[in-house]
């Protein structure tokens, strides 16, 4: 009986280098001249789900975006520090950003399917990579859609516009689109905030399944969701990382007063 509740969760300090998916060292980010991330140090474990929580504007999304360098789309952007993924600093000068982004998938808050067919949406990334072999594309699309638990619903209408899918289906399509590139890391930026509770549950189950294949980082405002889904959780406030530990301890006995205030709803 006890075994059922037992999870193979190491405490944060015990994570070895080999078990680290993303290693952030002294990361500072300025956007539009404002300090958004202040000296972040965090080791995100491999093949686990890490939740980033904190109030709006605390820098969760910026931190998530700095893992695949999406912050750089903002022209007025400066950053210092290092982010190590697979034994290399992704902010080094030789890093090819577009290649990096194929290894690190991202799902946005609002589903943003391209105005194309479901099929084309899923193989967009592969086509960008120059893949033209039809059989390979077909296989990848099927695998990605199955992984995203969408295959059964859309198998008969792969060539219909992606716009006709429901919100939850679109969001799963977005996950499939990212999975088609077989990324090592999947970043999810409030993936369920625009969805109804039932669909949210569905996506959460899906996220749990995906743990086997890749490292997941989820930004969420929903405390219950963070507690339900994540293995680890990080609480951020005003651009600083306040606390990072396994979810059980963070949500049951937070070390810092600020964290406790936030999760009990005293502010934020």
């Amino acid at each position: 009986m006890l075994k059922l509740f037992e999870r193979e969760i190491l405490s944060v300090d015990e994570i070895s280098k080999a078990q680290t998916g993303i290693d952030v060292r002294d990361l500072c980010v300025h956007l539009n001249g404002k300090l958004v991330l202040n000296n972040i140090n965090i080791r995100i474990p491999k093949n686990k789900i890490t939740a980033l929580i904190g109030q709006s504007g605390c820098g969760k999304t910026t931190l998530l975006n700095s893992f695949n360098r999406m912050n750089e789309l903002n022209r007025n952007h400066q950053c210092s520090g290092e982010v190590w993924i697979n034994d290399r600093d992704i902010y080094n000068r030789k890093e090819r950003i577009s290649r990096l982004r194929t290894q690190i998938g991202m799902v946005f808050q609002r589903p943003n399917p391209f105005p194309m067919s479901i099929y084309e949406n899923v193989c967009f990334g592969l086509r960008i990579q120059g893949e033209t072999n039809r059989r390979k594309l077909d296989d990848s699309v099927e695998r990605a859609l199955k992984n995203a638990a969408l295959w059964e619903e859309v198998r008969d209408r792969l060539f219909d516009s992606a716009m006709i899918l429901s919100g939850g289906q679109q969001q799963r399509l977005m996950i499939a689109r990212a999975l088609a590139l077989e990324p090592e890391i999947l970043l999810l930026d409030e993936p369920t905030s625009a969805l109804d509770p039932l669909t949210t549950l569905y996506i959460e189950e899906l996220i749990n399944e995906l743990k086997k294949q890749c490292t997941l980082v989820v930004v969420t405002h929903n405390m219950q969701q963070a507690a339900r889904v994540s293995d680890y959780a990080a609480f951020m406030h005003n651009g600083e990382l306040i606390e990072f530990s396994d979810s059980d301890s963070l949500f049951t006995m937070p070390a810092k007063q600020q964290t406790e205030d936030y999760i009990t709803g005293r502010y934020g």
Partner: protein
Amino acid sequence: MLRQFQLNYRQALSETASLLCASIMLIFLVSMVIFIAFQGSQYFVPKSAYKVSITFADAREEVFYQTSALSLENVKAQFDSRYLGQFLAEPENTPEVSVQLAEEVYQVVLDSGRVHFGQFYALSSMDEPALPLSELDNLRDTVALLQISLQEAQEGRLKDLHERIAQLDRSGVATDAPARDALMLNFNRWQAHVFELDRQIQKYRMQFKQADGDLISIALNDLDYLYQPNQLTLTDKIGFTFSKIWQFVSDKPKQASTTGGVFPAIFGTILMVILMAVAVAPFGIVSAIYLHEYAPDNRLTGLIRIGISNMAAVPSVVYGVFGLGFFVYTLGGSIDELLYSNTLPSPTFGTPGLLWASLTMGLLTLPVVIVSAEEGLKRVPTGLRAGSYALGATKFETIMRVVVPMASPGMLTGVILAIARAAGEVAPLILVGAVKFAPNLPIDGEFPFVHLERQFMHLGVFIYDGAFHNQTETQSSSLMFATCMLLLIIVFLLNISAIMFRHRLRDKYERV
């Protein structure tokens, strides 16, 4: 209470006032379209012919007169008012006008577009002086055959012989050399043959009696068609109208652009706007992509944007003058010096022509294209760009695969609006290549087939020119209105297609 009343009153007033303005505007618009459509349709419908006798104090004049007026009184009123003005000083001499329907009269239209009225008098062939009218078709066939053999003799033999003689002359052969003499003899024989054929053709004639009793003789060779305006049944009238419409869109203008069709103008307009679109669309769209996607967001870019918006407000004649100075004189002059120096001083490209007109119009419509393409680019949601970047697409790939397809409705709209604008423009075109009558189309069977240096006809310029013709001459002014109607239809169709295009593409790409 009073305050409430005042408020209600004010609201009602503003509502009424705006409704009034809107309806006045609508009435203006609709009446303009109706007016042009009515005036223009006059050109196509068959009109009744009347015999008008005018008795002056010392003379009597009789004419056949064709008008769209519906009753005899109206025709009489037209003439009365005309003479009332002429004889304002001596009202006692105002002529007496009487009008009657000319039942039997024929309208005879020549190939040149000239129109005669008259009663049929006689039909004569080479050896028969008086034939019945029923023989007309046979005789016309005979004439056509004669005309063909004449053409063959002229084009096939005479031209060739003439060239050979000219060649001998050029190479300095003496005028009395036997070879030249033989050629000359041959030439003279064929020329005599041609003269004989021509003389025969001229023998086939038709005579009509005009209103004042004078006879008018018309060679069948010059005849286009004839009909009796007052004897047409309803089906005849409908058929006549359609054949007139067909002539209008397929024939060239005749009689100094007072009758005939406007085909060269339609052709020139379409060719000009196609060339313009080919020039302006890539240029404008690429500029818009640069401005919106790549240009840094600073004051210089802002200034460029303001500059482009202001370019749209520059009077079009300024573009015409620029086109004349820059394209025609500078660019065209340089091309002539470089490539056509053997024909100088007569210019090839250094004169107004189709190419320069298209480029000038391209410049004029460039702001329209850039602004609407940028408008389209602005509407692409940032989320989609981010989605594309997150899948490993570079900026160029994102633009080509996601942004441009989604912005294509805006871009296409811009191009179609530019085409509509160029189709209706006049002032700059007069300066850079559109003329009121061009003898040749810019495309023909002669190498290199597309003659970009040629001058061309344009619907807008045609109307502008038509407006200077005698306003009382009903035929020419109705041709002008018919052309107006055609131009309106073309521009409306283009605008409607722009709207439909935009909707279709928006359905495809913009439901996000």
